[in-house]
């Protein structure tokens, strides 16, 4: 489903390689953790798949499509099939929690009836029914993060990308979110998740790709960056 061939990424102006020579193949329905030190390149990897960034060299295939070659005006349609949780949440500050999630459905022209049913469900799943009409800056860090998660799953995407989705959550809530992702994954959705949470990685026993200084240093099933 996802295939990276010799992907390198340098940010303009900085010589430094954020990702160098990445070759990865992730099949449909897999659940993959990306781990690594701060600055290892995890978010960069996520952004490449989202087409928020372009790779400096190499090819990225998602669902048999070379996404580096997608036409500008087709990008939105590509993105709609993905569900993304950003490390910094990226909620729309002038929309309430409810509207933030509904917005993701409105842009794909879901009927109002469906929206009215789905959004409260999603809010319930992440435990935020009582915050539906708050604005993002009236929420705690963890609450914002859960809104971002609800938004990512609302359209039943075939691929979910989560960058540090439990960084601001307590262990109990984190495990709730992980169970949610596991259920979604069990229904066939591919999940890629960057995380620092050793406990969660150890618990889940899924494929773990470890990055270090922009390079893949290990790729196997099991616990958090086993070399440590």
């Amino acid at each position, binding site marked *: 489903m996802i295939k990276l061939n010799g992907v390198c990424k340098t940010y303009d102006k900085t010589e430094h390689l954020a990702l160098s020579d990445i070759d990865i193949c992730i099949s449909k329905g897999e659940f993959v953790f990306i781990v690594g030190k701060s600055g290892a390149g995890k978010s960069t990897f996520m952004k490449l798949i*989202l087409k*928020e960034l372009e790779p400096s060299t190499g090819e990225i295939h998602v669902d048999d499509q070379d996404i580096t070659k997608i036409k500008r*005006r087709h*990008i*939105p*349609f590509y*993105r*709609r099939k*993905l569900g*993304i949780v*950003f490390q910094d949440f*990226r*909620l*729309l*500050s*002038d*929309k309430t929690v409810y509207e933030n999630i509904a*917005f*993701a459905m*409105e*842009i*794909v*022209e879901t*009927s*109002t009836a469906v929206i009215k049913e789905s959004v409260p469900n999603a809010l319930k799943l992440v435990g935020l029914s009582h915050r539906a009409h708050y604005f993002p800056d009236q929420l705690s860090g963890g609450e914002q993060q859960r809104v971002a998660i609800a*938004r990512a799953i609302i359209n039943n995407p075939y691929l979910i990308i989560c960058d540090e989705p439990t960084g601001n959550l307590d262990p109990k809530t984190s495990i709730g979110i992980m169970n949610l992702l596991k259920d979604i994954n069990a229904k066939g959705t591919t999940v890629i998740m960057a995380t620092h949470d050793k406990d969660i990685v150890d618990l889940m026993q899924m494929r773990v790709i470890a990055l270090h200084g922009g390079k893949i240093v290990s790729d196997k099933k099991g616990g958090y960056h086993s070399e440590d």
Partner: protein
Amino acid sequence: MKINTFKYFFRDCFRSIKKNSLMSIASVISVLSALVILGIFLVITFNIQHITSEMEDQLELKVFLEKDISVEEMGDLENTLDAHKDIESYTFQSKDEALNIMSNQLEQYENILKGLEEDNPLPEAFIIKTHSAGAITELNDSLSDLDGVDYINYGESYVGALIKFNEFANIMSMVVLVILTGISLFIIYNTIKITVFARRKEISIMKLVGATNWYIRVPFIIEGSILGVLGSILAVLVIRNAYYYLLGLIQGQSVLMMGITFAPPESVMPEIMVYFIVYGLVVGAVGSLFSIRKFLDV
């Protein structure tokens, strides 16, 4: 697009106006300010046009008659004048009337002219009003060869100067209007640009969750148009009331005005209103469209 989508657009743009009320108010004030300035100039321009056209209305052609004109010649002349299409009206001026008017006009020579009363050397004349200032020169040519006409006087240099001044005033006010329209466009566009800039993060988030460019643009364009129209309506109200107030102040102060009258607001305001509202709408919409462009590159 579904009808629902348009509902969302309107909901979103009203929400955004409310949420970003400081910026919305600022945008409206910018449009308002720019258009009030433009309005002041427009009113001045209309008044210049009004005054020059009043001056044109006062133009007249004096056809002096030969001293020994016959009754027949006189009749022919009157028939010609009656039939002429460029002539609005004409009156006959006798010798005495001519002297009277002359001594009134020439205050400083009053004493001297008194001596002339007995043996009045002034000729009789027809005083002709034309439909337009442009017709005067032509009329001069066509009438001067007629029998019984001695010579024609129409303040050649004055008419020339008036027409020239007219042209000059028109060109100048067009130039100033074009410049001001440009500047006010700049001001409004600038304000929109900054407000869009302040919301660039929101725009990029929308793009990242899969909104198409048009989906993002439309609410901004609607918002821009609403604020633009709002600003322009306020500008029309300000200009209208200020103009009525000014006319009220000046009324009765006719000494000040040296006989000049102002353009009536009923003829000025409708034009300004239509112009402004279209302007506010177009600038608001197009300004938003252009301002948002560079932030859609995500």
